[in-house]
C-alpha cells in the first residue's frame, strides 16, 4: 500500500520531466563566425556580380507614348537602332490602381449586369478595363516596311490557361452560342468569343491577353507581357536597324493621370532587367566581408586580454 503510494507520488525521473533533455547550446566562437561570415560574404559577392552582369546584358528600350497626337514630333520616329536581341514586348501602365478592392473579379458590381439586367460576361471591373491598345512592329528595310511577327502564345501562366480558367462548352458546335443571354463588358468593342478571330483557341476566357490582364498587378506602376518576338527571321532577335511601331490607341489614361509605355526588352535567367538584386547582393556581401575582417581584428586584440585575465 505504502509502496504504491510512493510510486504514484514520486515524480518520474526522466530527462524531460526534470528539464534535463540533452540540448545543443550553440556557442558562436570566433573560429566559426569569422570564416562563415567571410564565406557568406564571398558567396554573396559572387552572386551579386553574376546578377549585376546579367542585368547589364539585358537590353531595354522603352517609350512613353501616352497621349501622342498625330502631329507630335515623335509620331513617326525611326526608333530602333543597333538592336540585336530576342525581344519581349511589354506595355507598362502607371497609377492604374488595379488592385483596388472593388476591383475584385468575384464582386462584379457594378459590372455584373447591364441596364437590361443581362449578365455581363466576363464580369467585373478588371475584365471591363482590359488593356486594349494593340501594337504592330515593322522593320524598315530600304524604305519598305516588313512586319515583325509578334507571338502571343504562352504569355500567360501555364496553369491559368490550362487549369484555372475554363471556357463554357460549345452549344451546337458553336462556341458563340454558349454565351447566349449574356452581354459583353461595357468597354469591350467585341464580345469575349470574338477576342481573337484568327485563332479559335484564343477566345472566350482562354484568351492570352485576357488572362495576362486578369492576373492583377501588385503595384500601381506595373508592366505586363504583351508579345514575344520569336518567329521567322527574328527568331534570333531583332537585328540592328530601323523599326516602326504602329499603335492602335484605344486605352484612355490621362483622365486619371496615368502614363503608358511600350518596352522592348530581352530576358535572362533572372527575368527582366533589375539592378536592385545585384547591387543588394554586392553590398551585403561586401558588408559581411568587412565585418569578418573587423571581427578578426577585434578578436585578435581581445584574445590576448582574455588570456591575461584567465592567467
Amino acid at each position, binding site marked *: 500500500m505504502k509502496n504504491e503510494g510512493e510510486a504514484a*507520488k*514520486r*515524480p*518520474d525521473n526522466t530527462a524531460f*520531466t*526534470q*528539464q534535463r*533533455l*540533452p*540540448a545543443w*547550446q550553440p556557442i*558562436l566562437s570566433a573560429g566559426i*563566425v569569422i570564416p562563415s561570415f567571410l564565406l557568406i560574404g564571398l558567396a554573396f559577392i559572387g552572386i551579386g556580380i553574376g*546578377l549585376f552582369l546579367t542585368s547589364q546584358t539585358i537590353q531595354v528600350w522603352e517609350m512613353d507614348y501616352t497621349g501622342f497626337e498625330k502631329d507630335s514630333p515623335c509620331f513617326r520616329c525611326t526608333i530602333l537602332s543597333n538592336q540585336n536581341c530576342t525581344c*519581349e514586348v*511589354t506595355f507598362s501602365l502607371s497609377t*492604374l*490602381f488595379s*488592385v*483596388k*478592392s*472593388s476591383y475584385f*473579379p*468575384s464582386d462584379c*458590381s457594378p459590372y455584373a449586369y447591364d441596364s437590361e439586367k443581362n449578365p455581363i460576361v466576363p464580369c467585373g*471591373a478588371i475584365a471591363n*478595363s482590359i488593356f486594349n491598345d494593340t501594337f504592330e512592329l515593322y522593320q524598315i528595310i530600304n524604305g519598305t516596311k516588313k512586319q515583325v511577327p509578334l507571338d502571343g502564345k*504562352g*504569355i500567360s*501562366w501555364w*496553369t491559368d490557361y490550362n*487549369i*484555372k480558367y475554363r471556357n463554357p462548352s460549345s452549344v451546337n458546335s458553336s462556341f458563340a452560342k454558349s454565351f447566349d443571354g449574356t452581354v459583353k463588358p461595357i468597354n469591350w468593342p467585341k464580345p469575349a468569343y470574338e477576342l481573337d478571330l484568327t485563332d479559335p483557341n484564343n477566345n472566350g476566357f482562354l484568351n492570352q491577353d485576357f488572362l*495576362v490582364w486578369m*492576373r*492583377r*498587378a*501588385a*503595384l500601381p506602376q*506595373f*508592366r505586363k*507581357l504583351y508579345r514575344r518576338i520569336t518567329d521567322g527571321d527574328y527568331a534570333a532577335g531583332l537585328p540592328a536597324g530601323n523599326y516602326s511601331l504602329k499603335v492602335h490607341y484605344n486605352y*484612355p489614361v490621362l*483622365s*486619371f493621370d496615368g502614363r503608358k509605355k511600350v518596352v522592348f526588352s530581352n*530576358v535572362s*535567367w*533572372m*527575368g*527582366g*532587367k*533589375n539592378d*536592385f*538584386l545585384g547591387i*543588394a547582393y554586392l553590398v*551585403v556581401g561586401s*558588408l559581411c566581408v568587412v*565585418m569578418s575582417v*573587423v571581427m578578426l581584428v*577585434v578578436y585578435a586584440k581581445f584574445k590576448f586580454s582574455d588570456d591575461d585575465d584567465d592567467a
Partner: protein
Amino acid sequence: SCCNRFRTESISCGGDEKRVDSRTIYVGHRPCPDTEAFIPSKFCDNRIVSSKYTVWNFLPKNLFEQFRRIANFYFLIIFLVQVIVDTPTSPVTSGLPLFFVITVTAIKQGYEDWLRHKADKEVNKYPVTVLEDGRSVKKESEKIKVGDVVEVVEDETFPCDLILLQSSREDGTCFVTTASLDGESNHKTHYTVPDTEKDLQALTATIECEQPQPDLYKFVGRMHIYKQEQEPAVRSLGPENLLLKGATLKNTKKIYGVAVYTGMETKMALNYQGKSQKRSAVEKSINAFLLVYLCILISKAVVCTTLKYVWQSKEGQDEPWYNQKTQKEKDSNMYLKMFTDFLSFMVLFNFIIPVSMYVTVEMQKFLGSFFITWDKDFFDPEIQEGALVNTSDLNEELGQVEYVFTDKTGTLTQNNMEFIECCIDVHIICMLGFMCHFVCLFISIYQEKEELFLRALCLCHTVQVKEAGSEVLADQVDGIDGLLLQPEEERGFIASSPDEIALVKGAMKYGFTFLGLESKSMKIKNRQNDIEEYKLLHVLNFDPVRRRMSVIVQTTSGETLLFCKGADSSIFPRVRPEEVDRIRMHVERNATEGYRTLCVAYKQLSAEEYAMADTGLREARLALQDREEKLMAMYNQVEMGMSLIGATAVEDRLQEEAAETMEALQGAGMKVWVLTGDKMETAKSTCYACRLFQRGTELLELTVRTLEDERLKSWSTANQDYGFIIDGATLSLVMNPPRDADASQYKSLFLQICQNCTAVLCCRMAPLQKAQIVKMVKNSKGSPITLSIGDGANDVSMILEAHVGIGIKGKEGRQAVRNSDYAVPKLKHLKKLLLAHGHLYYVRIAHLVQYFFYKNLCFILPQFLYQFFCGYSQQPLYDAAYLTMYNICFTSMPILAYSLLEQHTSIEILLDNAALYREIANNAMLRWHPFLYWTVLGIFQGLMFFFGVRFLFSNPALQDNGQVFGNWSYGTIVFTVLVFTVTLKLALDTRHWTWINHFVIWGSLAFYVFFSFFWGGIIWPFLKQQRLYFVFANMLSSVSAWLVIIILILLSLLPEILLVVLRKPRGPHSRQVYFSLPFPLLSLNSSFLPYPSYFLIFSLIYILFCSSFILHHVLTRCDVTQSQPITRYLKLYSYVKQWLVSLLVAGLH
C-alpha cells in the same frame, strides 16, 4: 437557491431587516411545548453544489463569462464588424481563431465542471442513516434536513454539520480527525451536550445557534431541553460540540447528532467559496502593451482613412472610369462611408493584436507548471510528497520576487521540538548530566517545588495519548492497562502544538508521566510509580492574543489548583514581581540561545474563588453574544496573582539548509523579512543562525525593550548592512497611530527604513499584523512583488495577502498549503523554486510576450504599407489562408516550445550564482526599453520585407520566360520572408536546443512550405476565387524570387546575428558580463546595414535608448546613499518612544 440567499445575507448585513442573527432548530422535528406555534423554518437541503454549470445553461453562461474578458470581447467585436461591414478579409480569418480559443476554453471549463458534478454526485448520493420516529432510515445524503438526527459510524465522514447528541463511548466524547478540512491529522475530542437523555426518541429540544459562518473554529449556540413539568434546561454549545462536515469519526463506534447546518451552509462549503484571483505582473505588462498596440492599430486605421479621402478628393481619382462606384456607394452617406472604411481598416490591421497570444500564454502557464510538480528535487522522502501547484498563473511571478516574508516556526525552523532545560525558580535542570549535580545540591530545598513544576508540566496542556494501533482499544480502562505495558519510549502523544508534546515528554524524562485524560480526570504516574489523579475542571484555552493557557484541576485531596503556562511577557505581569527577576535572567539567556521559552505559574484557588470563577466561566460560555470578549475578560480575571514556578526551554532546530537558502535569497537581491509571533531574542538568534543578520550587520531595534533602555547606541557609518527589528506592540503603534499623531508620515518613515535594510525582523506578531505588513509593502511605491512563506494557520492571512503565497507542508496542519499558490515540503526548496524555476519562467514568458507582439507587428506592417500602393482600398496583401494560419500554425509551435523548454542559463548555474536573479528584477524584460527594442525590430523588419520586395517588383517580370507576377505573388514572397525571418529570429534566441526545439522550428518551416504547395496546388471547390492557385510553385520557379527571399531574411536578421555573435556566451567558465541581459544593448554599434535611411532611424532610436538605459543605470546607482536608514530610524525612534512610553506607563499603573 440557498447559497445565493446566504451570500445576500452576508453582504447586506446592516440593511436587511429580515436577517436573523440566530436560527432555531427543532431536534428531530419535534415541536416543543414552549413555543406557541411550531413553524418549521426553511433551510436549504443538504445538496452540495460546487459545479458552476448545468447542461442547459452551460453554453450561454460559459460564453457570457468568456466574453467578459476584455480581449475576447474585442475579438468578438472585430468578428462582428467583419460579418456586418463589407470588409476585404473574410470573417473566417478572425472568426476561426476566436472560435478555437473559445472552444478550447469551454472544453477545459466544461471538463472541470463535469469533474465537479461527479464529485458532487458522489457526496450527495452517499447513503446515510437518519433516525425517524425511532427507526433508522437509509437516505441519500442530499435528503438530510436541518433538525434530522443522523447516525454516523466509525471512519465515516459527517454528511453535514452536526451537534453531537450521543456517543457510543461512555464518557460522552468522540474523536474526529479533520485531515480533509485543515489537514491536522491529530484526533480531536468532541463532547456530547451534557445531560441529554439517553433515549433520543424522548428528547425534546431546540437548538438556537448563530447563522452559518465560515470560521471552522468558532461556533456559538444554546440548547433548550424540555422535560415534562420542568423548566427547560439550557446548555451552552461551543465548537467542541459541533462535528463538521468533512471531518471523519475515529475511535468511536457510532454517534448520533442533529443537523444544524446543511448543504451549502456547512462550514466546509462556506470555506471553499471564493479565493481571490491573483494576477501576475506580466499580465499587467501585457495589458499595457496591448493598449500601445491598440493605439497603433487605431492610428493606422485613422491614417489610412484620412489619406484615402485626401487622395480621392484629387481630380480623377475618386471614380476613375475603370472603377466606377456602385449605385449603393453613390447613395450612401459620406460620413457613414468614412466610418465603415475606418472599421474595415481596423479589421484589416486587427491581426496586430494576436488572439493566439492568450491561448499560448495560458497553455505555457498550464503546461509549465507541470515542471514544478514533476521536479524530483522537490520530493521529500519523509512525507512522500513533492511540490504542489495550486495556481499556474503565477509561475513567472516567482522570478520577480523582491520581498520574502517568512514565518519562523516551522518554516525557518523545523518545528521539531526538543525539551532542552528548565529552570525552577533559581536552579536549572540540564538534560545532559548536570542534572544530578544541581538536583543533589538543591534537592532538599526545592524538591517540593520541582515536583510541583513537573506536575504543572504534566497537567497544563491539551495533549492526548495516542491509542496504540489503528484498531482502537474499545474500552478505555483496558486501554490504560495496555499503555502501561508499553515501554515508555514508545508512548505517543498527539497535540496541536509540538511544544506541548516536547514539554510532556520532558516531564516524562524526569519521572512524571502523563497517562491520559479520561472522563474529565487526568492521570499522572509520579516518580514513585504511583498514579495520581486530578479532576479537570476547566481548560482556559490557548490563544495567540493572551499567549498563555491554563487549566483548573482538583486534587484528590480536594485542593483546587490553577496551572498556567505561557510566554514570559504574558506571565510576568500576572505573578508577584519579586519572583520575576530571578527567572527573567534565565529566560533571556535561553532566548538568546535560540530556544523557545515558556513560563509556568500556579495559583491555589480557595473554594469561594473557584465558585466565582466557575460561574463566571460558565456564564461566559453560555453567552450568545460577545462570547469571545466575555470569555477573554473572565480568563484575564482568573489568571491573576499567580506565583511563578519556573521556566522551560525548548529547542527548535533550523530547517535543513535554512541558512544557505536565506543567503541565496539575499544574494538574489531579495529582502527577507521574518514575521514571527515568537520572542525577540529567540527570533533574533534564529536570524543570526540563518545568516539573515551577519556579524557586521547594524541592528536597528525598535522594540519595547530598547525604548525602555533610555539610551541609543551610536552607529558606525562605515557599515553597509542594516537589520531592523520591530515588535508587535511598536508596530501597531506605527500602523494604527493615535489620532493626533501624523499617521502617514511615520508609516512611510517606517517603510523607508525597512526598504533600506537587508533584513527585517518583526517579532511578537499577531496573524493579522503579518498580513498588514505584507499589505503595506505590497502597496508601497513601485509596488514590489511580495512572497509569503509559512506553514501554519497563522500564516494563512499573509499567504493570501502576498503576490505569491507559498505553503510548507509542515507539521501544523494543511491550512497554509490549502491557501497557498505553491506548496513545497521544505524551506530549502524555495531556493530552486525561485532561482531556477521562477527565473526561467519569467524569461520564457517575457520572451513569449515580446515575441508575439513583435511577430505580429512585422506581420501587419507590410499590410499597412501596402495600402499606400493600392489606393487605400483595404486590399489585403496576404491571402486569407495565410492571414488565418500565421498565428495558429506557422509561428505558434516554436515559441510555445521555446517558452516551455528554454534555459538561457542552465539550472545549475542559476542555482550557483544567485546574483543572476537580479538581472531580471523589476520586470526587466517587460519594461518599456525592451518593448521599444522589440517594436523597433518589428518595424525595421516589416519595412525590410515590404520595400525589399517592392524594389524587386519594379520589374515584375521575374521568370525567365518573361511572364509577370501579380499581387498575390507579391504577398506570398513577403509572407515567405516573414515566416522564415520570425522563426529564425526565435532560433537565434534559443540557447537550449533540445530535439523538441529542432522538431518544431524546422517542422513548422517545412509545414509552411508544404501547406503553401498544397493550398496552391488544388482547385478548392469551396473557394470562390483560386487566388493562390500555383502562386507558390510559380514563385519557387523564379530564381530572382529565391534570391530576394534569401537576402531579405539575412538582412533582416543581420542585426540579431551580430548581437548573438558579440554576446558573450555564458558558460560555466565565463565571467559576468556587465550587460548580460538576453539582448546586450551596447553591442550593435559595429553593425552596418545597406539601407542607410532605415538603418539611420533604427540605429538612432537604438542609440537613444541605449544611452537612456545607461543613464538610468548610472542614476540609480548613485541614488543609494548609506546614511539614510539611520537618520530615518532616529526620527521614527523618537516618535515611537514618545508614544509607547506614555502608553506603557498608562498601562502598567
